C-alpha cells in the first residue's frame, strides 16, 4: 500500500463520483464506466485498473454510499465468474496489456466470462485434465472437451487450463489461457440438468487457435495460476449483510406461518432445528464479514460453502414434505436456458433438485472438507501415488 488512503477520503471520492454522474440522470453503462475510471470499482486494485491501491476493507464504505444513492450495480450475479475468478487471476498473472484490455469491460459487464476447467474425466481431480494445447508458431492449438460450464452460452471470454506437456507429472504440464469464445472450433452445447433446465454447458474445443499473447503465466505453470482462481472462487462471500430468514429458510418459514393445516409435530421439530442452524450460519457469515472489514480475514470462508450447501439441501427437502400434495407437483419440465444461476427461484421441487448441486459445484463438500482438514487444521495429507508419475503414464 503506497498511499494510506482512509475511509473519509474514499467516502469523499464516492460523493464526487455521485455528484459528477448523478445515478438518476446517468445511463447505467456510463455510470459504471465512470465508477471504474474513478478507481471505485474494486478499491484494492491498482490505480488505472478500477482501483486506488486502497485496503480491501474500504470497499464496503464505497458500496454503502452507492447503495444509499441508489446507484446502478454491475450485476455481480451475471458476471460472477469474471469478477470472482478471471479478474484476480488476470491481475495476479496477466501482462500489463492483458490487464488493460480485459479488466474494464469485465467489471462494467460488457463482456461476460466463463471458466473452462472441469472435464468429464477431471472434476474433483482437476489436475488430471486431458484437454491438449500444442504449440504451433505464435499460436497454441487446443483440442478437448470441458463440462459444467455455466454462462458459456453468453460468455465472450473464458479462462482455460489445458495440458501442454504430457511427459511430466500431472500438476506440472498444465498452462493457463484466455480463450475467445467466438473463435472457430469452440462449440457450446446445453447440458440439461436434474431440474430440466440447461443452466450449464458442455464445451467442445476442436483445433481452437489461441495466440501465445493470451497465455496467463509461464508455460507449464498453469496449475499454480489456477490455484489463484480457485482460491478466489469461494472468497466472494462477505460483501452483503444477509437479514434474518434471508435465505431458503425464509420461504419455508413463510409457508409454515401461512398454512397452519400443513403443520405436524415432526416437521415442527425439524423446522426449528434448521431455523436455528440457518440463523447460526447467517451469524457466522456476519462474523466473517466483520473480520474482513477489520482486516483480519479468517479461514471461515472455506467453511461457509459447506454449511450453506447442507442447509439448502435439508431445508428444501423439508419444504417439499411440508407442502404435501403440492410437493408432489413440479412447476415445469420445459428445458430453459437461464442466464443466471438461481438457487431459490421457482418452486419447492426446483429448489430441492437444484440444491443437490450446491455440494458439488465450486468444489465438492468432500474436497472442501479435505481443504479445511489440511490447510486449517494442519492434518496430514493422504498418501498418493500420482505425484511423480508422468501424466501420460497415469491410468485413465
Amino acid at each position, binding site marked *: 500500500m503506497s498511499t494510506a488512503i482512509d475511509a473519509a477520503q474514499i467516502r469523499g471520492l464516492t460523493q464526487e463520483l455521485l455528484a459528477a454522474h448523478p445515478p438518476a440522470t446517468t445511463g447505467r453503462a456510463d455510470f459504471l464506466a465512470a465508477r471504474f475510471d474513478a478507481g471505485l470499482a474494486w478499491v484494492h486494485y491498482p490505480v488505472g485498473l478500477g482501483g486506488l491501491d486502497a485496503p480491501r476493507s474500504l470497499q464496503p464504505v464505497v458500496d454503502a454510499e452507492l447503495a444509499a444513492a441508489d446507484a446502478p450495480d454491475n450485476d455481480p450475479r451475471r458476471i460472477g465468474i469474471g469478477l470472482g475468478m478471471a479478474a484476480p487471476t488476470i491481475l495476479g498473472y496477466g501482462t500489463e496489456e492483458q490487464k488493460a484490455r480485459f479488466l474494464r469491460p469485465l467489471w462494467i459487464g460488457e463482456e461476460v466470462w466463463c471458466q473452462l476447467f472441469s472435464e468429464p474425466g477431471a472434476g474433483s481431480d482437476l489436475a488430471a485434465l486431458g484437454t491438449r494445447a500444442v504449440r504451433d508458431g505464435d499460436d497454441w492449438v487446443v483440442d478437448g472437451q470441458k463440462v459444467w460450464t455455466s454462462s458459456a452460452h453468453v460468455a465472450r471470454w473464458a479462462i482455460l487450463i489445458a495440458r501442454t506437456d504430457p511427459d511430466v507429472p500431472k500438476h506440472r504440464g498444465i498452462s493457463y489461457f484466455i480463450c475467445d469464445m467466438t473463435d472457430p472450433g469452440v462449440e457450446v452445447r446445453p447440458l440439461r440438468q436434474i431440474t430440466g433446465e440447461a443452466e450449464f454447458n458442455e464445451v467442445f474445443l476442436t483445433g481452437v487457435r489461441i495466440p501465445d499473447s493470451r497465455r496467463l503465466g509461464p508455460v507449464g505453470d498453469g496449475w499454480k495460476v489456477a490455484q489463484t482462481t480457485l482460491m478466489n472462487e469461494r472468497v466472494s462471500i462477505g460483501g452483503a*449483510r444477509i437479514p434474518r430468514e434471508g435465505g431458503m429458510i425464509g420461504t419455508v418459514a413463510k409457508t409454515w406461518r401461512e398454512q397452519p393445516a400443513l403443520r405436524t409435530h415432526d416437521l415442527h421439530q425439524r423446522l426449528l432445528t434448521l431455523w436455528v442452524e440457518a440463523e447460526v450460519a447467517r451469524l*457466522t457469515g456476519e462474523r466473517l464479514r*466483520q*473480520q474482513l472489514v477489520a482486516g483480519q480475514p479468517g479461514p471461515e470462508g472455506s467453511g461457509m460453502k459447506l454449511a450453506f450447501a447442507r442447509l439448502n439441501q435439508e431445508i428444501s427437502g423439508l419444504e417439499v414434505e411440508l407442502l404435501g400434495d403440492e410437493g408432489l407437483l413440479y412447476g415445469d419440465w420445459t428445458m430453459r436456458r437461464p442466464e443466471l444461476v438461481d438457487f431459490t427461484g421457482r418452486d419447492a421441487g426446483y429448489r430441492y433438485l437444484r440444491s443437490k448441486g450446491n455440494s458439488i459445484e465450486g468444489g465438492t463438500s468432500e474436497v472442501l472438507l479435505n481443504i479445511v482438514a489440511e490447510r486449517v487444521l*494442519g492434518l496430514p495429507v493422504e*498418501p498418493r501415488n500420482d505425484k511423480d508419475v508422468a501424466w501420460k503414464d497415469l491410468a485413465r
Partner: protein
Amino acid sequence: MTAQTEAAQAPDLLYSEAEEDLRSAVRSLLADRADAPTVIAGIESDTPYDLRLWESLAAGIGAAGLLVPEKLGGQGATHREAAVVLEELGRSVAPAPFLTSAVVATEILLALGAQDGPAAELLGELASGRRTAVLALPFATPPADGAGAMTGTLERTVTGVAEAAAADVLLVPTAEGLYAVEAGADGVTVEPLVALDLTRPLATVTLAGATGTRLAEAGPAAEAVGRGLLAGAGLLASEQLGLAEWCLTETVRHTRERHQFNRPVGSFQSLKHRMAQLWLEVVSARAAARNAADALATGSPDAPLAVAVAQAYCSRVAVHAAEECVQLHGGIGMTWEHPAHLYLKRAKADSIAYGTAGRHRASVAGLVELPAP
C-alpha cells in the same frame, strides 16, 4: 435505513483487544494452576474447589466482579468479557463457581437495581470474590421457567443445585419474594450429590426452619430471576464453545501424532472429514455464542432470541465435540487418566443446564412465530 444505523444495530461478533488481554490472563492462570492432572487430582479429593485458584481468578484477575459496576465494587465490564472468561473455563474444565455466582447470582442482584441495602452489599461481596452465592433452583431450569419459580415458602427442598456446596449464600425464590439465606445458618442443609459432571458439583438444598433476608418482592424478583437464568444460559454457550475448541484441538493433536497402519491416523480421509466438520461447528458456535454475549451486554431486545439460538446450537456442538474427542482418541479416550472424560461429562451436563436444546427451540418457536401444530 442508512449504512450507519445498520452498523449501529449489528452485533459486534469479534473480540476486542481488552477481551483478548483478559483471555490471556485467565488462560495462563488456568494453565499454571488447573492443568488436567491437577483437575483430576482435585475431583478425587474432599475439596472439589481449589479455593486459592478461585481467589486468584476472582480477586487477582477481577473475574468475579466483571458484571458489577465499579461503584458497587466491581469491574464495570460486560457480558462480553464474562463470556471470554467462560470460554477459558470451558477449555480447562476447572471447577470454579464463576457461572453460578459471578454470572447468574450476580445478574439477579443487578437486575434488582438496588444501590444500597442487603442486595447491593451482597453484590459487593460477590464482586470481590470473598463470598459466593447460588440461585437455589435446579441447574436444569431454563430461563422461561424463571417466573414460575416464585412459589412456596422458605420451607423447601431443592435438588440438583449447581455449586451449592461451595456457596456462602443461597438466593431462594418463594411466593413472598426472593430471599438471601446464609448457607451456614441454622435450618439449612446442603447435601452433596454424586453428579455426572465431576467438575461442577451438585447438591440438594433443604431449608427447614431457616430464615433469610428478603431482597425483593415476588414481582420484581421473578423478572430478576428470569434475567439471571437468561444470562446463565447465554454465557453457558461460551463455556460450551471453549470446551468444544479444546476437544477439537486435542483431537487434531492426537491424530497427527498417533500412527496406525503405518501412517498418522489423522491422514485418513474419514477422520479428517469428521474433524473438519467439527471445526465448522466450532466456528459457527463462536458466532452464536458471541452474538448472545453481545446481545446481553448491550441489553438488546433481541437477547432472548440470541440466547435461545446459542443454547439450541452450542450445547449440541459441545457434546458432539466431546464425543468425537473420546472416539478419535481410541482406547486412550476411555481411560480415567486422559482428561477427555471430564469434557464429555461437562458437555453432557451443560446440555441440560439452564434448559435443553429442545426447550430453547421451543422458545425460538415462540419468539419468531413458528408455532407448534
